[in-house]
């Protein structure tokens, strides 16, 4: 599904390397988790994969199902099936949540040469999915993320993911700021989407989320590299001992 090789990324504006050779391979249907200290480059990886401006790829490649991602426009990557649940979802004043999503869904369908969803069909689908995430009609009408609480914003990201049905989902700290019940809702939403044709990359600081969304592989990122990969037990080790030992190992 996703194949990242020797990815080196710096900032466009200043001379600073952030990713210093990331290798990561995620098979179809797999769930991978990335943990790592603050500032290690986790969000940067997600931005570079999705095509945000301001970063310069100095070496390496990233393929989604055999297609080179790094040469595509952000919307082409989206249409190819890449989705990023943002660590900090963006507010768009005056644009209804529902309008936003319908525009997005239809833009992707168009790009893939599929028919657009009619207003009626769209409404039916979104109502059902919103209900599962306990997002009420009012939140669907309100402007995108404006005045949403932290947890509401994160649930809204999952709703967008559910509507867009991407192939490769990157979740950047979707668990941060969620209360216990919301965490269950979100995990349930993610688990409901798990299938053989869809993969996940879950960035998190907490083992707790991984109790709900069972990862196949856990990676530890530090200082722009993946320093260790292992099974779910790796997350437990971090939870109990922190990063000191792991960092010492590679030093």
């Amino acid at each position, binding site marked *: 599904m996703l194949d990242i090789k020797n990815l080196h990324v710096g900032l466009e504006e200043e001379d600073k390397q952030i990713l210093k050779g990331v290798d990561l391979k995620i098979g179809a249907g797999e769930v991978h988790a990335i943990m790592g200290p603050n500032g290690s480059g986790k969000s940067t990886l997600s931005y570079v994969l*999705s*095509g*945000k*401006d301001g970063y310069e790829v100095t070496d390496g490649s990233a393929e989604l199902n055999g297609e080179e991602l790094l040469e595509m*426009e*952000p*919307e082409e*990557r*989206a*249409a190819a099936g890449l*989705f*990023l649940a*943002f660590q900090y*979802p*963006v*507010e*768009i*004043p*005056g*644009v*209804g949540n*529902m*309008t*936003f*999503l*319908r*525009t*997005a*869904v*239809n*833009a*992707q369908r168009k*790009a893939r040469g599929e028919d*657009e969803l009619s*207003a*009626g069909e769209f*409404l039916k689908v979104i109502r059902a999915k919103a209900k599962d995430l306990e997002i009420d*009609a009012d939140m*669907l*009408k309100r*402007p995108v993320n404006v005045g949403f609480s932290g947890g509401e914003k994160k649930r809204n990201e999952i709703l*967008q993911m559910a509507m*867009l049905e991407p192939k490769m989902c990157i979740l950047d700290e979707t668990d941060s700021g969620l209360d216990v019940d919301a965490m269950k809702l979100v995990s349930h939403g993610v688990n409901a989407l798990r299938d053989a044709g869809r993969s996940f990359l879950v960035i998190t600081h907490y083992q707790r989320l991984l109790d709900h969304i069972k990862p196949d592989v856990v990676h530890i990122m530090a200082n722009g590299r993946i320093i260790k990969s292992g099974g779910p037990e790796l997350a437990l080790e971090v939870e109990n001992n922190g990063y000191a030992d792991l960092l010492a190992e590679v030093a």
Partner: protein
Amino acid sequence: MSLDTEVKDGVDQETVDAVREVGGAYKYGWETEIEMDYAPIGVNEDIVRLISEKNKEPQWMTDWRLEAFARWKLMKEPDWAMVDYPQIDFQEIYYYAAPKSMADKPKSLDDVDPKLLETYKKLGIPLKEQMILAGVEGAEDIPAEGRKVAVDAVFDSVSVGTTFQEELKKAGVIFCSISEAIQEHPELVKKYLGSVVPQSDNFYATLNSAVFSDGSFVYIPPNTKCPMELSTYFRINAENTGQFERTLIIADEGSYVSYLEGCTAPMRDTNQLHAAVVELVILDDAEIKYSTVQNWYPGDEDGKGGIYNFVTKRADCRGKRSKVMWTQVETGSAVTWKYPSCILRGDDSQGEFYSIAIANNLQQADTGTKMVHLGKNTKSRIVSKGISAGKAQNTYRGLVSMHPRAKDSRNYTQCDSLLIGDKCGAHTVPYIEVKNNSSRVEHEATTSKVDDDQLFYCRQRGMDEEEAVALVVNGFCKEVLQALPMEFAMEAQALVAISLEGSVG
């Protein structure tokens, strides 16, 4: 979810389709090849007389025009606005151009040159029901025929036909061209013409008073709600021709009307002049909603061509508890100079002004409003959204004046500017005068830029850059789009998208 919210929520599929379809070009830029009947170029007393004669006007009207012309000769073009354009040679303009086939005015739409009708069909007139229905959530709840809109179409200098005349007549509503009104309803025209915008008001209004060739006239009798929306479409077709139309709307006591005005012009590399006057008279307990979507040709990317739009629009809330609401979406013209105003004369009268002004490339817009509070307990509200892209300059100029007698009056002004790119400008120039101590004026102004994070968020969800900008900008304009009648709201959203084409990247 109600029908209205979804349409007006922000951008919808129509917008996106419109952008794709148009592919950067001005959509209304074709011209119609019709044999025209011109008056000789330039303006003098003979031209004024000729226009009057073409319209078969009575002597009092000819005299009124000549009086205006005499004043105009002594006046100077104003230069205080923040717009910059080459000196206009008023003798190099045609003041009268009419399709030949209109020499004898048609009795009904059936008599109109089919080419003209084709032109209007291209412009989407009458507004198609399918437009109401397309892509609108809950469309199944709308009655199949949709809403009726009566249309008066003005082609260059003359009105070419008004629809639904009979049905309106039944309700006692008069909706016709102003030239017809001068002949058929002289008592109303004599009483109200020039009573809101006097002949001597300003340079362009005075010129208009002398040479206006046609326009629309509306009279709503007491205690009548006009049974349908009324609409005028203006089209400048002939080259080097000025369009000077005059609109007069009278809402008698306790009546209501919603009036829509749309404008387009062909693409030409010479500038064309448009100097209209709109007068609204609102008596006790009456209400007028006046909406404009102005999409005159703005000129090309290098600022060549385009319409000079110098318009005087004013509403006189003469009666107690009278109400007026101006809503405008200004995307066109090379230079716009326009300040729809409200004179709140009657006690408890209300004026509202909602505006979206978009300036792209080298367009210049100097627009705003005047709220003149004369009566007690009068209220006004101004919501202005200015969007600048390319190298455009957008100025909001607003006067709020509370006179000594206007006790306990209120004004609220919200003035937001949005910049796309860093070569454009936005300016806000409020003038506030309060001459009594029980009135209150509130003014809020913001300037923001289209945010890269917002655009990236939209693009990550699959929208291309132009769709993303259109969506964010439509969100910024939402309060004003919501104030428009539904048919216009959709058209306006599409226009917002089209007029910002090529503004990013």
